[in-house]
């Protein structure tokens, strides 16, 4: 649905995006993660033509965004809704009028029976049908973002772009917004592209993720692959370093990157091999309902071969930490 190939962009001397390539399939919730200033928001704005880029290609639904004329670009933008970190609602318009605004941009009457029904349905979807006459200032951050989501859906888009949509919200409200995004993705079949620096967002909703650092894609894959067994770049981002591990013996990190993350593995290991070892760190995480995680154990030097053979036999991915 969205194909990005060798896309580069400079702000003067500064290289913001460098040879970015990845594809987003229809119906996916695709995450773009990275630190502030990594270029991810700029990349998102290239998708709906708010930003131009210098080289490469970006094709949405078979159309090369950069080659579109102004009128054609507007038509493509109509098919992409967007929500923002600061919600960007008009302070002088009430909830209903804010949601109706994009319709008015497309020459439609905000109070025609069909538009009224449509807007009310959307406000029901986001759970704000009793707030239609409220002004944004009277709503909480989470409610404002819900209004923004309703507004982004009012033109029946195929794609929803989310720019740090939950970064200004607390964890409980964030969870509510993420559940809403999953619902929109499942029930309306809308492809969602999420730009964020929050690991939790990626874990909870994304089916695929691109990790961006200094304007480059450093990893692409499923979140569970990328974050349970992270490469060096991602470890640095997640802040996952092992400085608290014992100096003696060998530290082994076990990854439970698939469904057989059995709790019995550790006790079975001790019983079968009849050895002693310490458990140093453990982490279980929820990826869209699947529990995945990692565990670091400290074993004796002489048990190394036995333990590795056991792990291999049980199809466990492991890494010796040094």
């Amino acid at each position, binding site marked *: 649905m969205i194909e990005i190939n060798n896309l580069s962009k400079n702000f003067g001397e500064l290289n913001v995006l460098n040879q970015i390539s990845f594809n987003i399939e229809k119906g996916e919730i695709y995450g773009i993660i990275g630190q502030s200033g990594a270029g991810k928001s700029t990349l998102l704005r290239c998708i709906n033509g708010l930003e131009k880029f210098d080289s490469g290609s970006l094709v949405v639904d078979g159309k090369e965004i950069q080659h579109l004329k102004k009128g054609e670009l507007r038509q493509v933008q109509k098919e992409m809704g967007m929500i923002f970190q600061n919600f960007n609602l*008009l*302070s002088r318009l009430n909830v209903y009028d804010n949601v109706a*605004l994009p319709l008015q941009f497309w020459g439609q009457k905000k109070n025609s029976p069909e538009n009224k029904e449509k807007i009310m349905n959307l406000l029901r979807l986001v759970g704000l049908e009793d707030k239609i006459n409220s002004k944004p200032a009277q709503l909480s951050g989470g409610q404002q973002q819900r209004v923004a989501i309703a507004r982004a859906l009012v033109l029946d888009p195929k794609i929803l772009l989310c720019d740090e949509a939950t970064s200004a919200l607390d964890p409980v409200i964030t969870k509510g917004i993420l559940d809403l995004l999953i619902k929109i993705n499942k029930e309306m079949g809308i492809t969602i592209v999420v730009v964020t620096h929050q690991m939790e967002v990626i874990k909870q909703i994304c089916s695929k993720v691109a990790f961006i650092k200094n304007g480059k894609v450093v990893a692409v894959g499923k979140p569970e692959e990328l974050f349970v067994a992270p490469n060096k770049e991602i470890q640095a981002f997640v802040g996952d370093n092992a400085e608290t591990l014992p100096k003696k013996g060998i530290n082994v990190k076990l990854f439970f990157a698939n469904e057989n993350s059995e709790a019995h593995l550790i006790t079975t290991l001790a019983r079968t091999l009849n050895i002693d070892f310490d458990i140093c760190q453990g982490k279980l995480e929820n990826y869209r309902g699947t529990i995945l995680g990692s565990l670091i154990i400290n074993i004796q030097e002489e048990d190394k071969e036995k333990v590795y053979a056991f792990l291999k036999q049980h199809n466990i991915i492991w890494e010796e930490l040094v």
Partner: protein
Amino acid sequence: MSQILLKALYETLYMVLGSTFFSVILGFIPAIVMTLTASDGLRPNKKIYAILDFLVNTFRSFPFVILMCLVTPLTRFIVGTTIQKTAALVPLTIGAIPFVARVIESSLREVDHGLIEAAKSFGASDFQIMLRVYLKEALPSIVSGIILVMISLIGYSAIAGTMGAGGLGDIAIRYGYQSYSDEYMFVTSIILIIIVQIIQTTGNYFYKKLS
């Protein structure tokens, strides 16, 4: 006395309201063009912006008395005379246009850029963004800016009054100052204070109501 004051009050209101009306209409145009052509505007254009910016600054830097003398030929061309309240509308309007333009431009500039971006992301045209986002959001601030201009115009109208335009300023100078009548000086001052208070209070009411 009341006859004289009533007539002067009418003349002052005529000049202030008339010149506010014309200067708002004429000041809106450069304000919108400057907003569009500013470096972060919808149609950035350095040249056009620089020219307008220069003109606004130049006209604002003239002391009103001097501006009034300078535009005398224009006043005579438009109105046919350079005295009386209607003639005063010309210099008052010309003096207020750059003021209005600057006030409206800064109101429009204060509109959160995120709103413009959101509107663009829904495929809004530049015209729609100007009308439905910029002007809509900036309206309370524009109203409060126009109130500021109106109150300044009361001061300008008094200056115009000393040069044959009539109005409360003229009464204060001729009767109060030159004929040593403390009574006239006092009463005209009180009336001017009341007018300013009424305008400001009305302005505040609308600002609150709109925002």
